[in-house]
C-alpha cells in the first residue's frame, strides 16, 4: 500500500539505485531531486531492508534520509552512475545559461540535451566535452534516451522524435518521426527494454504513443492516458508487459498488456527468422505473435488494463521509477510515495 512521506521539497525526479539482477534483492535506496526551492537538493533515501516478506502490507518503514547535496537550479533529470563529476555551463544561450532538461547514460558515455536545442556528449573519464551537436533542434529538447549503444533518440517541443547516430559526424538526425496531426510537445520517452525498436512517448496532451522506429513515420498506437501533461513514461525493466506513466493531473497509471496468443511474452520477439518454425504452433493469430503486445493498434486484439496507483487526488506527480516490485514517485505536494508490492 502507498504511504506518503512529506519531505518539505517539491520532487522533480526520483530514481532507484540499480541493484544487480543476479541478486534477487529488492531495491532499497533511491535518489530524489527537488525543484522550485531557493536551494535545491539531491537527496539519497533508504527504505531500509526489513528482511522477510512476513509483513502483509508493503507499508514498512518510512524513507529515511541518508545524505543530501546542494544543487544549483532545479533538478530536471537524474541518472545513477558510479562516478560523479561536474560539468558547468554546458548548455547555454548566447547571453545566458540555458536549462538542461534531460540526461541519458550508457556508461561511460553521458548525453545531455537542453532548452538551447543542443546535444552534448560527455565521457565520465574525460574533463571536457566530447562532442556538441549545435542547433540539433530549433525548439527545446525535453528528453533523451539511448536506443542502441551508438544511437540516441530525442523528443522536442514540436512533437518530433529524432534519431541521432553518434558515430556519424553530421549534425543532422538520421531519422525524424512525428505525428501527422497536431504537433503536440513531447516530454518523455522510454525504450522497450528488450526490443530496441519500440519506444513509448508522452506529451502535453497526456496521450501515450507507442512507436516502432523501424517502420514509418507514424506511431503504432495512441492511447488516451491522462488529462494533462504526461511527465514520465517507463517500461518495467524486467517485465516489459508493464508500463507506468505519471502526469500533471496527479495520477500514476500502471498499464498492463497481455498478448492474444498463449505464448508467454518472453518467447515473442523480433526474431523474424523463426517465423516459419513458429507458425506451425501459432494459433489463429498468425504472425501477430511475433509482434510485441504493445504494437497492437487495435485494442480489441490485446487486452490493456490500466490501474491508478495513488490512493487519492494529489498535485502533479512529476516523476516515477520502478525496479523489481518497488515503485517510487514524487509529487508537487512535496510528498514521496513508495509502493513495495507492485503487481508485476
Amino acid at each position, binding site marked *: 500500500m502507498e504511504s506518503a512521506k*512529506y*519531505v*518539505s*521539497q*517539491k520532487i*522533480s525526479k526520483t530514481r532507484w539505485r540499480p541493484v544487480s539482477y543476479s541478486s534477487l534483492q529488492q531495491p532499497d535506496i533511491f535518489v530524489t531531486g527537488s*525543484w*522550485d*526551492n*531557493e536551494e535545491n537538493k539531491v537527496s539519497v533515501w533508504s527504505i531500509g531492508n526489513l528482511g522477510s516478506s512476513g509483513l502483509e502490507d508493503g507499508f514498512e518503514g518510512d524513507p529515511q534520509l541518508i545524505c543530501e547535496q546542494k544543487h544549483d*537550479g*532545479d533538478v*530536471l533529470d537524474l541518472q545513477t552512475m558510479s562516478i560523479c563529476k561536474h560539468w558547468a555551463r554546458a548548455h547555454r*544561450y*548566447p*547571453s*545566458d545559461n*540555458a*536549462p538542461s*532538461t534531460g540526461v541519458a547514460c550508457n556508461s561511460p558515455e553521458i548525453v545531455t540535451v537542453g*532548452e*538551447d*536545442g543542443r546535444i552534448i556528449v560527455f565521457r565520465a573519464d574525460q574533463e571536457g566535452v566530447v562532442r556538441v551537436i549545435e*542547433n540539433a*533542434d*530549433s*525548439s*527545446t529538447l525535453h528528453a533523451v534516451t539511448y536506443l542502441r549503444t551508438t544511437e540516441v533518440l530525442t523528443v*522536442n*517541443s*514540436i512533437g*518530433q522524435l*529524432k534519431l541521432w547516430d553518434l558515430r556519424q559526424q553530421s549534425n543532422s*538526425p538520421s531519422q*525524424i518521426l*512525428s505525428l*501527422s*496531426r*497536431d*504537433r503536440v*510537445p513531447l516530454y518523455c520517452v522510454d525504450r522497450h527494454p528488450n526490443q530496441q525498436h519500440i519506444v513509448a512517448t508522452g506529451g*502535453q496532451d497526456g496521450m501515450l504513443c507507442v512507436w516502432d522506429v523501424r517502420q514509418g513515420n507514424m506511431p503504432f498506437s495512441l492511447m488516451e492516458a491522462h488529462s*494533462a*501533461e504526461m511527465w514520465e513514461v517507463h517500461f518495467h525493466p524486467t517485465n516489459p508487459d508493464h508500463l507506468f506513466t505519471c502526469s*500533471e493531473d496527479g495520477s500514476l497509471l500502471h498499464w498492463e498488456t497481455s498478448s492474444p496468443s498463449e505464448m508467454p511474452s518472453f518467447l515473442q520477439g523480433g526474431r523474424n527468422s523463426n517465423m516459419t518454425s513458429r507458425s506451425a504452433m501459432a494459433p489463429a493469430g498468425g504472425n501477430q505473435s511475433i509482434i510485441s503486445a504493445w504494437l497492437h493498434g487495435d485494442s480489441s486484439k490485446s487486452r490493456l488494463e490500466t490501474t491508478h496507483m495513488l490512493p*487519492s*487526488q*494529489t*498535485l*502533479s506527480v512529476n516523476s516515477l521509477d520502478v525496479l523489481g516490485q518497488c515503485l517510487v514517485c514524487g509529487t*508537487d*505536494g*512535496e*510528498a514521496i510515495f513508495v509502493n513495495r508490492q507492485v503487481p508485476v
Partner: protein
Amino acid sequence: MEEVDVEPTVTNIPEIRHGKHMGFAWGPGDILVYETHFKPSGYTLSGPGGSFIHKVRKDEDINSPILRKLFNESHHIFVGLQTINDDLPSKSKRPQFVSISRNYRSVIRACMEELQQVAVSTRDTEKGTQYGNQVSILLAIELIWNLCEVLFIDAAPAGSLLLHLLDWVRLHKADVDEKAKDVLQSDSPAEHHNYWDVVVSYVLQGRLEEARQMLVKQATLQPASRNMYKLMDSLLSKMPFYNPGGTQTLTEFDVKWRNWHEEVDRYLKDNTFASNRHLELICKILVGDEDTLLEQKELLSTWYHFLVTRLLYSHPTVKPTDLHYYAQSCLTMFLDSRSVQEPLDSILLAAFEFDIYLVIKDCSIVLNNWWFVAHLTDLLDHCKLLQSHNLNFGSNMREFLLLEYASGLFTHHSLWQCAVDYFDHCPELGRACLELQIERVPLDTERKALKVLRICEERQMSEQVRSICKIMAMRALRNNRLGSALSWSIRAKDAAFATLISERFLQDYCAKGTFSDLDLIDNLGPAMLLSDRLTFLGKYREFHKLYGEKRFKEAAKLLLSLMTAKIAPRSFWMTLLTDALPLLEQKEVIFSADQTYELMYCLEELTSSLDTAASGGERPMQEEDVEQTKVELLRLSLARNLAMAIVKEGTVET
C-alpha cells in the same frame, strides 16, 4: 480609522544606522526597507549611506522546513474537505467533519513532535529557543482546535459534554503519565515522593480506575488502615459516569450521581478519613470542595483543568449554554493578583462562551500566520456554524481568511502551487486574486512555465495564458530559438506572434539565402494555418522542395498561386519573381501563356507601387540601379517566355 487592538511590535533593522530616515515599499508578503539621504534640519550625521535593501517579513514560519509539511498535508485535507457531498444534511455529516478535524489535529501533532525532537537535539541555542517557541505555539493551537472540535463541531449535549472535556484535559496534561511511570518503575512505588501527587492527579482528571490501582499499593503497606482504604476504594468504584450510548437518561444519571455525592459528603462530615490527610484530601475533592481544589493549583496548573475538575465533581450534567458561567468564575478564582490573563486564556474563555467570532479574531491577532484561522473557519463554515457575517468589502469571513492565507502562500517560491487550490474554493474573489497572482510567478525554466500554463488553462484564464506564452516566446526569440517560440505561440493561438516569427525566418532567408531550422518548417503541419505569414513560409519552402526535385511545372504553379492568392506579402514579391527567373529561362516552356500574363500583371503591380514609394523616399542610387536591372531582366524573360508559350500552344502536334 479603527482602534488598534494591540500595540504594534517594534522591529529594529540592524544595518540602518540609528537616526537615519528609512524609506519603504510594500510587497505581497513583506516590506522592503532602505536608508534614505533625507536629512532633517540641524542634523549633522554624515558619511556614506547604507547600500542595502532590507526585506522585512512578518511570517517566518513559512520558511521552516518542518512547518512546510504542515502546510502541504493540511492542503491535502482541505481539498478533500471541499469535495464532500453537499446533498446530505449536515447532521449526518458530523462524524465526517469530526474525523477531518482529527486529521488536522494529528498533522499538527506530528509537526509538533518533529519540532520537539529537533529542538532537543540542536546545539545552536538560538535555533533551539526558536524551535521551542514554535512547539509551544503549536501546542496552544492544538489545544484551541481540540476545544473547538468538542464544543462546536461535535457539539456534545449535556452529559457527554463533560466526558469530552475530560478527554480534552487528559490529552493536554501528559506529565501525569510520566510521573506515574517514574513512580511505578521505582522499587517501592508507595514510598516514592511523587506517589501521592500521582494519585491526586488521577483523581483530579477523573481517572478513578488508575487511582484505585495505585491506592492498592499503599493499602498493602498500611494494614492497620485497611478499612479506610477499602472504603475509599468502594467510593471511587461507585462513582457514576454518564454513558451516552446506554439506556440511562440524563435525569436518571443525575439522581444516581446525587445519591453518590451525598454518600461521600456523609463520610466527610463523619470524619471517616480524618486520620489520613491524603485520603481526607481525596474525599474533599470527590465532594467538589472549591477551596480544596484551589489548593491543588500546582497539580492542576491551568484554570481550565480546574474548571473541568470542578464540573466533574459538582455539576457533571452541565449544559453547553451554562458553561461560560463556570468558565468565567473559574478563571477569576484561579488567577490570583500576580498572574495576568494571557491571550490563550481569553481565547479559551471566548470558546466556552460559544463566541466563535471572538475566538477567530483573537487568534488572528495573536498568531503571525493565517494558517490556523483559515482552516478552522473553513471547517466551521462547512459545519454551517457561521452565519454570513458580512465584512466591509462584502465577502464573508471564511473567504477573507482563506484569501489572506493563500496570498501569503503565494509569496513563497515553492508553496504557490498549494495556494491555487485555496483560491479555487473562494467563490467571490478567488478567481480575480488568482489571475493577478499567477502572472507574477517567476518563470525560470520551461517546465515551470508549463505547469503555470496548465493551471491557467484549466481555469479558462485565457488572458493569462496569452501573456505567459508571449513572455516565453519573446524569451525564446531573443535567444534565437525560433522553434520554441513558434511552439509557444501555437499554444496561445497567437497569430500575431506567429507572424512575427515567420518574418524572422524570411529575413534570415533573405540574408543568408538558405532556410535555417528546416526541421521546423518542413514539419509545420496544421500549425501552418495559424497565420497567413506562416502559411506562406510553409508553401514557399514547399516551392523550394519542388524545385529541388525538378518538378518544375508544379513549382511554377505554386509560385504563381502564392502571388495571385495574395498569400505572399508584397515585400516578398520581388524575391518570388526573381525565383521565377530560372524557371522562365529553361529551354522547356514551363509557364503557360496565361500564367505568363499573370506574372506580368504582378510585375506591373509591383513596379507601380514601387515607383510611388520611391518618389517619396530616399533610396541610394545603387539600390535603385539594381532594382531597375532586375525589373528589366524580368520583363525580358517574361516577354521571351510569352513568345515561346504562344508558339507552343498554337502549334498543332502532328
